[in-house]
């Protein structure tokens, strides 16, 4: 951060800022397309989701503007318009996010906002954008509630919600007919953990009606110390242990659980864990079953588009892209396609929020992680295929590979448009195509 | 014998091994001006603290206005009409002298109002009047932190008097005041009290002060009353000479 030296004069910042926006606000009306990208740049979620996502966004903005992305994404910028991105930290709570969202639209005059990892933030900003009638893409957050509780005109989510993650986990166990008599749970004590635990439990009720829940542990978010929980897991080992832990918490849990043999006594199944593999390396025990919230990273499908993306990202950041990066990529690609379609419909002129929304609604596009289709939530909620695999350390490459990968088509693990995910699971996955 | 302002019977108080009050009995008729003397640790201030509810006696009764006040806290006792000043003046250092007086007036109201302005002209003039009686008018607008010790002492007493107490206890009003200042100061205090029908009990080390201003002197020694008579008699008393004044004078020097 070269600019930190300016900080001691907050007044100056405000003034400089004021001048700055006075200068640019009207100027780039036509030839540039401004996007606001919001994700965690500080706090627990920065390392695992926020920063990979922002890195992906930066990389793609460059590549798009240089017109170096493969067809059909090879037009410069968005249909010739140079992309200009503003990055905002998602840390600080929903209040701050709504405020920043309004600032982005009104003060920074952005044409679209992509972002939000936290479900709480998504729930908060969605109505705000809708009310302002401004175009918003939620790229990552998990809760199904967003489009199940109400419908939106201007808000989209370009990735499947969290129900898919746990349904596919259950299906993987069933498909590999892994016997399950008892289940232990360890999930963070906040909505993500609660919902994941519930989704998996309901799924298992359908697939393994006789399986019994034993321990249902709820360590607090950011606990860091799992000694006590691990003892609890060991004192009543279950056939499988389910967890939706992520980021630092998951890494700490694995570092502390592996030496104590949790993974030896019980099959560990993780709903969203691929992002910890590059870091953990050989500290990740073999045979752990995990998902990536999509067909991402080492489980991404073979395709020229994916090869391009995988190597592009790996070259730039010398670590391969994982879920957050993929999810940002599919959001950016979806926006690019929508923007260019809307532009065409608009006679080559820059589209407004309505036109962008119209273009994205119900559309579908190829992404590194597979085909994205905006079919749920009345054309506003994407469904996508996903994959589950098993960890196996690869000494030559010095990285954790994923083996026994099994793919699940979108309709197999996502609820149909007319059903809430929870009802769908309870209905025994009515109409699921596997 | 006229009605009693204060009567203490069989007061006992000890801190661990130290006995601060052993069977203390005092009866003080309304309007009298009594001085408590005794060397440091003799039990004077302990007595004051028991009367004002700061300390609870281990045994004995304290009647004020014919009512037993043992077990009541300082606030309740103050509300009954007992006020005190402090050896170290207890003031709001960061406020002006006038504001301190207004605080005293505000507290005297019991359940202070949430909306009546504390600095209304009426209140100010009442406070100023009292300040003038203590010759403090010139300091009214100065912050207490900047005022000299003697002035703080007077202010401390003026605040105590604001609530129109029936009984006023002064804890060493002239301690830490220079020899030249002490008589003018006592004159000011006595002058200020003149108007009020208030019984005064003051702890004092200085025998000249005692002889000049007290109607009656009560001498303490290691928690016991060893003499209780008009000044001359007490100061003539053998024990007092041995245990109090002699030591006292040296202790003070």
């Amino acid at each position, binding site marked *: 951060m070269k*600019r*930190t030296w300016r*900080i*001691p004069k*907050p007044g100056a910042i*405000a003034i400089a800022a004021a001048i700055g926006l006075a200068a640019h606000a009207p100027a780039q009306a036509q030839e540039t397309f401004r996007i606001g990208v919001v994700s965690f*740049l500080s706090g627990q979620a920065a390392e695992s989701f926020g920063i990979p996502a922002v890195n992906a966004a930066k990389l793609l903005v460059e590549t798009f503007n240089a017109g170096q992305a493969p067809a059909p994404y090879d037009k410069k910028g968005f249909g010739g318009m140079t992309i200009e991105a*503003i990055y*905002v*930290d998602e840390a600080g*709570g*929903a*209040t*701050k996010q*709504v*405020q*920043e969202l309004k600032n982005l639209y*009104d*003060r920074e005059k952005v044409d679209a906002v992509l972002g939000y990892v936290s479900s709480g933030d998504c*729930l*908060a900003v969605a*109505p*705000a954008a809708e009310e302002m009638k401004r175009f918003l893409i939620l790229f990552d957050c998990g809760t199904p*509630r967003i489009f199940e509780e109400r419908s939106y005109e201007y808000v989209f989510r370009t990735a499947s919600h969290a129900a898919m993650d746990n349904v596919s986990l259950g299906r993987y166990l069933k498909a590999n007919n892994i016997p399950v008599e008892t289940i232990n749970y360890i999930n963070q*004590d*906040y*909505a*993500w953990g*609660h919902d994941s635990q519930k989704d998996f439990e309901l799924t298992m009720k359908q697939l393994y009606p006789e399986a019994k829940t034993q321990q249902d542990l709820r360590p607090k978010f950011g606990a860091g110390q799992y000694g006590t929980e691990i003892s609890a897991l060991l004192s009543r080992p279950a056939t499988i242990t389910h967890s939706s832990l992520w980021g630092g918490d998951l890494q700490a849990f694995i570092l502390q659980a592996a030496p104590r043999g949790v993974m030896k006594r019980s099959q560990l199944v993780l709903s969203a864990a691929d992002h910890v593999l590059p870091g953990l390396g050989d500290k990740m025990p073999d045979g752990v079953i995990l998902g990536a919230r999509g067909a991402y990273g080492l489980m991404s499908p073979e395709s020229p588009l994916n090869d391009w993306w995988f190597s592009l990202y790996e070259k730039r950041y010398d670590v391969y892209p994982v879920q957050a990066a993929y999810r940002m990529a599919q959001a950016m690609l979806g926006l690019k396609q929508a923007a260019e379609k809307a532009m065409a419909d608009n006679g080559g002129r820059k589209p407004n929020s309505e036109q962008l929304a119209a273009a994205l609604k119900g559309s579908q596009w190829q992404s590194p992680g597979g085909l994205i289709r905006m079919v749920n939530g009345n054309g506003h909620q994407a469904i996508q295929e996903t994959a589950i695999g098993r960890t196996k350390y690869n000494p030559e490459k010095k990285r954790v590979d994923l083996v026994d990968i099994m793919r699940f088509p979108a309709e197999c693990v996502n609820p149909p448009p007319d059903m809430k995910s929870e009802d769908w699971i309870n209905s025994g996955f009515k109409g699921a195509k596997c | 014998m006229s009605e009693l302002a204060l009567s203490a019977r069989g007061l006992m108080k000890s801190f661990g091994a130290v006995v601060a009050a052993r069977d203390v009995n005092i009866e003080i008729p309304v309007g009298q001006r009594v001085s408590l003397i005794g060397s440091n640790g003799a039990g004077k201030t302990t007595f004051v603290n028991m009367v004002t509810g700061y300390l609870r006696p281990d045994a004995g009764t304290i009647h004020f206005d014919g009512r037993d006040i043992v077990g009541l*806290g*300082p*606030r309740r006792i103050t509300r009954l009409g007992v*006020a*005190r000043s402090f050896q*170290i003046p207890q*003031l*709001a*250092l960061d*406020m002006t002298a006038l504001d301190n007086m*207004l*605080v*005293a007036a*505000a*507290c*005297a109201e*019991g359940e*202070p*109002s*949430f*909306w*009546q*302005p*504390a*600095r*209304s002209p009426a209140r100010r003039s009442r406070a100023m009047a009292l300040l003038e009686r203590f010759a403090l008018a010139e300091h009214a607008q100065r*912050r207490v932190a900047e005022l000299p010790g003697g002035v703080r002492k007077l202010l401390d007493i003026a*605040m*105590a008097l*604001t*609530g129109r107490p029936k009984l006023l206890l002064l804890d060493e009003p002239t301690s830490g005041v220079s020899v030249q200042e002490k008589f003018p100061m006592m004159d000011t205090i006595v002058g200020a009290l003149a108007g009020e029908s208030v019984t005064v009990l003051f702890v004092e080390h200085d025998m000249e002060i005692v002889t000049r201003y007290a109607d009656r002197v009560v001498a303490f020694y290691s928690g016991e009353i060893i003499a209780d008579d008009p000044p001359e008699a007490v100061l003539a008393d053998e024990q007092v000479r041995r245990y109090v004044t002699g030591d006292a004078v040296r202790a003070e020097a």
Partner: protein
Amino acid sequence: MHATTVRTVLAGGLVVALLLAAGLAMPDWLLFLATMAISHGVVSLGVVVMMRAGVVSFGQGFVFAAGGYAAALVANQWGVGDALLLLLAGGVAAVVLSLPFAPLLARYRGIFFAMLTLAISMVLYGILLKSVALGGSDGFNVGRPTLFGASIDGRANFVLYGIAVVVVGLLAIATRIYGDSVRGLVSLAIRENELRVEYLGASVRRAIAANYLIAAFLGGVGGALTLLALGHIDPMFSYWTTSGEFVFVAILAGHHSVLAVFVASFIVEVVRSFSNLYFPSTWQLAMGVFLLVVIRFLPRGLGSLWADRRPRAAPAVEAVAMKEAVR
């Protein structure tokens, strides 16, 4: 009515009128920012009310959340839409929830008061986090309120700003009147010398409890106001960092001026908003430095720039000595 009171009311009314006028000229983002500054400022105003009696609450998030959730539930469960009713509900709920704690907390001072209030707010945070019915940590959304039965859509930003200015303006005026009142002066004296206040016949605990409840009402209204403007609520309302910001604004403002609280609140919102945008990955650093600069160079707060006529505070030693005497 007393002269001072009249003066306060007139001055307050003038400020409110000016702010309303200014609102007409503000862009939406500024309107929203100002609304936030006001709705957070009124919570800090509560902290200031407590500060005047020498105690600081690190748990105002408790009443902030109480007010917010109360208003949200009243709106969603009972379908009450009127903004003013919801604000009232928020304030009342916060007071009711604080009532049991008031006598307990009145026994504590300094760091212990701060930490106990913090503990209370964190327990509420935990409860909210776990209450699935309330959306857990994700919280839930509330639709736009109405005003006197009329929909406010379209001009929502301005109307909400207006409501904030008027309602909080009234509360601020009331607070100022309280500050100048007999009881207000007693509070100030408690901050300086508790013991003497008791010896003058006033109840310190009752005074502190009263301030705590007043602060609770202000905080509750602030929470409800934030909810209305935001349309969303979640347990972060009760998190300790939220409470920390209220204290920060209170310290920044100092306890000499009511207006200063809102100026401070506004400055903080602006600094946060711009540093967040212009230094996305070092905005915490910016806030921290800003905080330090303020505490260092405005020891008695912004308000001391205009409202505090008196010279510097007594030297620390003296203050300490007094505190000792008070114990």
